[in-house]
Each structure stands twice: as structure tokens, then as C-alpha cells.
């Protein structure tokens, strides 16, 4: 592709990366592109405001309101907006439902696409090479060996590789023994991994 020789790889230490990030920050601040207050605000949003608790609220509502659930499965983005949930990296969301016979799990084999508005920022393992390489090739093995989720062969496994800007995420099954629980209490038991599909919601 190019005739420029490729630099031999150097794996930077944490200190080297930190210094380089700071250098880039300093230049971009001086150039008027960046501010530390904007970085602080952006990171605060994903530390305190946008995280899996939002997806959990959507799931709990879907478990208790059949019409909402129907809308959610046919229009993920629009229906999440009813609860004020949406935005960056969730502009086009598709919610896929786990049932007795179907188990869904999401991945992005090419980078790290993830539905931020409902799950927040992804954990490192989701963005790392091991999960991205293996979950499309041996999902049952990964779910069993790496996540402790042993699915019988009778359950169909659907892996959604988020290769476009569509953001898939999972509506997990409502566990047994939760009949009397309020929507709010149900939201409290929904886990992040159950919405990725690497887990199920445990019975309370």
C-alpha cells in the first residue's frame, strides 16, 4: 500500500502513554480544539448518568408492559426515547429478545461497537481480541467456559456482530419468582451482562 517503512512496534508503558496523552491534550487545548472542562463533562456523563441502569429500566418496563415490549422490539430507538434514553452510539438500536428457545449475544468483531445509551461504556473484555475473535466461532464454548452460562443444544444461539451503525442489545428473560415485583425492583436485578447476552438475569 505504501512505501514508507513501518516503524518497529514499541509497546508503551503506562507512564509513556499517560505522557503522550497529556502532550496531545496540551497541544489541542492550545489550538482551541479541546478543553479539560469538556473532557471532565464527557467522562462525568458516562461515570454518573449513562450506564446499564438505563438499559435495566427499559428491560423492567418491557417485562411489565406488554405493549411497550412490542414497541421496543419493533422500534428500539423510538421506544427507548419514550423514557428519555438515546443518543450517541445508540442512534439506531435494535433490541433482540431472549426466549425459552433462543439466546442472543452481541459483539463487534471489527472494533468495539456497543449501545452506549443503554449500557454505558463497554468493559475491556468486550473490546479485547479474545471475545471478539471467539464469540462468533464458538459462542456456546465462550458462554460456558468464560461466562459460566451453559446452554443446552436445544436453545438456538444467535450472535449479532455489530458491523454497521445498528446497535443491537438483548432483552433478557424475566426470571422465575418475580411475579409480585415492582418495575423498579425488577430494574434492580437486571445485569449488564444479561443485556449483552453473556449472562442471564438471576432469580432474586
Amino acid at each position, binding site marked *: 500500500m505504501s512505501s514508507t517503512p513501518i516503524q518497529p512496534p514499541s509497546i508503551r508503558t503506562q507512564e509513556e502513554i499517560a505522557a503522550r496523552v497529556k502532550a*496531545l491534550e496540551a497541544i489541542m487545548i492550545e489550538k482551541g480544539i479541546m478543553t479539560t472542562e469538556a473532557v471532565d463533562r464527557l*467522562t462525568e456523563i458516562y461515570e454518573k448518568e449513562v450506564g446499564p441502569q438505563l438499559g435495566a429500566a427499559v428491560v423492567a418496563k418491557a417485562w411489565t408492559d406488554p405493549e411497550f415490549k412490542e414497541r421496543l422490539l419493533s422500534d428500539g430507538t423510538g421506544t427507548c426515547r419514550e423514557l428519555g434514553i438515546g443518543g450517541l452510539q445508540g442512534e439506531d438500536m435494535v433490541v433482540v429478545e431472549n426466549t425459552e428457545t433462543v439466546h442472543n449475544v452481541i459483539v463487534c468483531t471489527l472494533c468495539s461497537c456497543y449501545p452506549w445509551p443503554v449500557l454505558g461504556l463497554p468493559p475491556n473484555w468486550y473490546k479485547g481480541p479474545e471475545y471478539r475473535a471467539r464469540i462468533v466461532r464458538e459462542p456456546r464454548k465462550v458462554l460456558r467456559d468464560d461466562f459460566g452460562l451453559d446452554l443446552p443444544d436445544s436453545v438456538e444461539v444467535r450472535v449479532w456482530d455489530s458491523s454497521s451503525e445498528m446497535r443491537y442489545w438483548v432483552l433478557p428473560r424475566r426470571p422465575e419468582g418475580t411475579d409480585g415485583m415492582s418495575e423498579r425492583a425488577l430494574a434492580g436485578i437486571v445485569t449488564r451482562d444479561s443485556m449483552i447476552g453473556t449472562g442471564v438475569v438471576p432469580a432474586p
Partner: protein
Amino acid sequence: MNGVHDLGGTDGLGPVPVEKDEPIWHADWERAAFGMFSMPFRAGFFGVDQFRYGIEQMHPAVYLLSPYYEHWMHAAEHYGVEKGVLDPADIEERTRYYLENPDAPLPQRSDPELLEFVNAVVSAGAPAGRESDKKAAFAVGDRVTVIDSSPYGHTRRARYIRGRTGEVVLAHGTFIYPDSAGNGHGDAPEHVYTVRFTNSELWGDEAAEPNGFVYFDVWEPYIVPAAGTEGSAA
């Protein structure tokens, strides 16, 4: 490009390193490296497809071994230099300075508009859907085959689906085409479809796990009607 980032189906990487109660950031610099994507984006350094292509051009060994947010830093640096906004010598010099003086403060500047942009972009997003009068050549239910080619530059045509045949299960409308936008050539919208592949189509009967499918999103130029079929919506 046939890059190392295209990981689907790669063997030998070992178990998934799940960290219990993982924090959002593993070091302070990760916050800044994360924050760094939105502002050069606003400054016009890159769109999301170019951002990805910037990361894909990391050295493959470094790509695999470096912490995730270093990838983001790499993209900001790559396009900042390409746009002539960042000077490589300046980056090296300041990096040395902060390495020797890790607690030295950053320059301070306030910009209410930038703060407003951050709040607005998080809640409104940056949609990739684009109007187009192109007619969809395929419809749900069509059998399609992914063209088995290896383009240079940015593409989302992962190697593990090239040459494979599946069924269109969702049709999403028209979106920015990464093979154009990611290579700096404009939005050039194309129809996006979700194609469902059986495990055995992807990995062969011997290796494939039972009773499973992989769903992969393709842009229309990636696919052709499967042998013996016609695009039904044509």
C-alpha cells in the same frame, strides 16, 4: 484492509479476560483519551469511519497488546498530524516533558460552546442514516452471497463472511457507506441489511457449533444474489 482488527474467527487468543467489578477507567489518562475523540471529531479531524480506520492502521502487534484507549489516542494523533494541526516533533518533545514532569499542569482554557457541544452530542447522537433515492436491490428473505474480495483501505467486510451465503433478515434503509467515508470520500449512502449465516456456512460442518447463527450487517455493494437466485426487490 486485511488488518489484525478483523478478529472474527481468529484462534489461539485464549480465555476472555473478564475483570470482576471493572472500573470505567483503569488509569487517569484513559479519561482524557476517551474525551479526546469528541473534540477532534467536532474540529473535523475525522468521522466515525475514519476514526476506526485510523485505529486499524496501528501496528498489528501494538494493536493487540496495547490498552484499549491507546487506540483512541492513536486515531486522534494520526488525523491530527494528517490535518497538519499536530506537529510530530512537537508531540515527541511535549511527551518527553510530561514523562519527566508527570504532574506538570495542562494549559487552561474555557470554552462554553464546546461544553454545550459535548452535552448535545451525547443526547442527540450523530446518526449515520442518510436520505437516498436509491432503490433497495434486496429484500428480507433473499439469499445473498458476500463478494469475496479484499479491498485496501477501510471496509466493514469482515474476512469471515467473505464468500459466504446467508439470508437477509432485516432491511434498515440507507446509511453512510464506510468504504467511502472511512477512506475520506464522502457519505455515499448505501442500503444496509442484516444477513443471517448458519454456523456451518461460516466454519464448516466439522467445526461449527450446533443450532446457531451469526447475524452480520452488510452494505449493499458487499453482496450479490446467491447463485441461482435473483434480487427480489429489483
